[in-house]
């Protein structure tokens, strides 16, 4: 790259075909992305969901932020899909929060994807059988997702009787996603 002037004096010409638009695309745009990374946050606050035995998605219904527009919310789908072109590794945090579980209930929270079985990540699992009130389970995963292909979803695997999620403020399910690397 040809030198140009950076002091207090007006720069004049850049030379050798370089333009400031080049610098913006090669420098500023990267730092903009690294500063305002792709993020997503959502909670479940409006309608309790009845969890049934087996693995299922948690129907988050309150999107707090989704600046990259990845939220997909149609019948049976409650997940975040990184837009095409935005592939990389993401740190994902979730919590599955339910009403007081029965003694026979066991719940495993997952961060799931359609990538592969190895790209499903279990979190803290507890049966909480003696807890007399709402109870949560945390899951934290670091996973790769290909833009436009691999969705990311908070999931719950329940054994035992049906169990409702909790939508009480502070005692509700939530999921957050943030880009961490391009690898």
């Amino acid at each position, binding site marked *: 790259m040809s030198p140009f002037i*950076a002091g207090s004096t007006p720069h004049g010409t850049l030379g050798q075909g370089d333009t400031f638009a080049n610098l*913006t695309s090669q420098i500023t745009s990267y730092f903009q992305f690294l500063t305002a990374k*792709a993020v997503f*946050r959502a909670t479940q606050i409006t309608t309790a969901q009845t969890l049934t035995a087996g693995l299922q998605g948690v129907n988050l219904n309150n999107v707090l932020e989704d600046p990259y527009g990845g939220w997909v919310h149609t019948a049976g789908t409650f997940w975040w899909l990184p837009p095409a072109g935005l592939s990389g590794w993401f740190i994902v945090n979730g919590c599955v929060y339910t009403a007081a579980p029965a003694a026979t209930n066991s719940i495993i929270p997952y961060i799931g994807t359609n990538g592969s079985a190895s790209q499903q990540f279990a979190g803290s699992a507890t049966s909480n059988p003696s807890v007399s009130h709402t109870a949560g389970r945390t899951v934290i995963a*670091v996973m790769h997702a290909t833009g436009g292909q691999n969705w990311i979803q908070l999931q719950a695997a329940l054994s035992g009787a049906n169990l409702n999620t909790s939508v009480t*403020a*502070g005692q509700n399910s939530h999921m957050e996603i943030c880009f961490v690397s391009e690898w």
Partner: protein
Amino acid sequence: MSITQRRAPARAVTGPAGTPGAGTAVSYQPPVPPPPPDPGSPYYGPRNPIDPPYPGPPANLKTWSLTSVETISATILQNDADDSIVFLIDPPMYSGQLRSIWPIPQNAYYYVPEDFDLLDPLAMHSNPAQPELIYANYLGWYLCIGVMTYNTTTTGTGVIYNATIAVTQNNVATAWIGQQTPTQATFRPFETVVELQSLNPATGDTVSLAGFQTTSGSVNTNTTAGQYPTLNVIYAALPSAPPAWSTSLPVPANTAFSDTTQITGAFMNTNLRDTVNFLTYPPICRLQRNSSVQLASTTFPAGTAVPFNVATIDNWSAWNGTTRYTFPKAGLYFVYGQVNFLNDTTGTDRACGLRVNGGTTQWGSTETAANTVLGHISIACQMIRAAAADYVEVIGYSNATTVGGITIGGAASGTSKLIILWLAA
């Protein structure tokens, strides 16, 4: 390429790495190649995964003159801009799992070796003789996230399981305990741990996943797909403040270069030097409660803020010395808290939560206080959107009936703690 490797027997986390003994031969899986970058990405543009050689953390950033005319050379742009971008968008990072059976003996902390690397582009998992060790290539603070899954569901009551991050720093090994829960019938012990640790390649520092359980014998790890023990290690921040840095440094605004506005030294300092300094030295914090203290017994969802008394790292000086971390800059923060409830068999419940500005606590893991002589550790994690000057606290809840409340804290490695990392604007 598959590497056949002899695995060591379970090794306790009691000191520096030792010599592995004979074990059962297993296939040591090569890393999964990183996926190709998206060509023409509208987000960060087409670029090779790595422009060789890997540049390492940014250094020697130029401070531009505010009064003199200077030249922006290709060398400066390569070092200050391109190399910084490569490092920031592809930071040192490891992700791996243990997919084969591994026994965890009882009553001590035991390393968990990874036998399948999901991501290891910088060969941090480079010692086949001791596959439990993850090495740091670059001095700095690393966010470590582990999940420990035990393959058992019928363990009765009165024993505990946990997930631990074991680090060896300057040849001293420490087991930093994460989530630790007592058993119940139908209990499935999957435990989570988060740590923020300084690793120095010059002293051979390593980080590992470890497990601990108190049954009467060994318990195997889980080998079900989606339920593997997993360890992630991500470079988080430079080890110390770079030159020309201060707590007044703003979150980067990333103003575009303009053909109609002169490029000044101030512009270059703000949009190149200070931007890189902020992104490589973002607010991070790790607080501990190293001595015991009592939390009042409450009725859920009321709880009590944990008074911390040690800061391992607080690079933006944002801890108030007791319960609060005040976010120094606006942004999205990764926040992890845990409360170490010491042995107390009274009451039924324990829980950990996070509370912002004294508002409603967002509760995390909630466990039953079953019979246990070792207590247990509850955790909570959330990515919090914070304004500058907002504050967060770790909240503990217990309905123990002990007079004066339940005791938390205690041993340094089994501490209550708070971990903070600025993620994004």
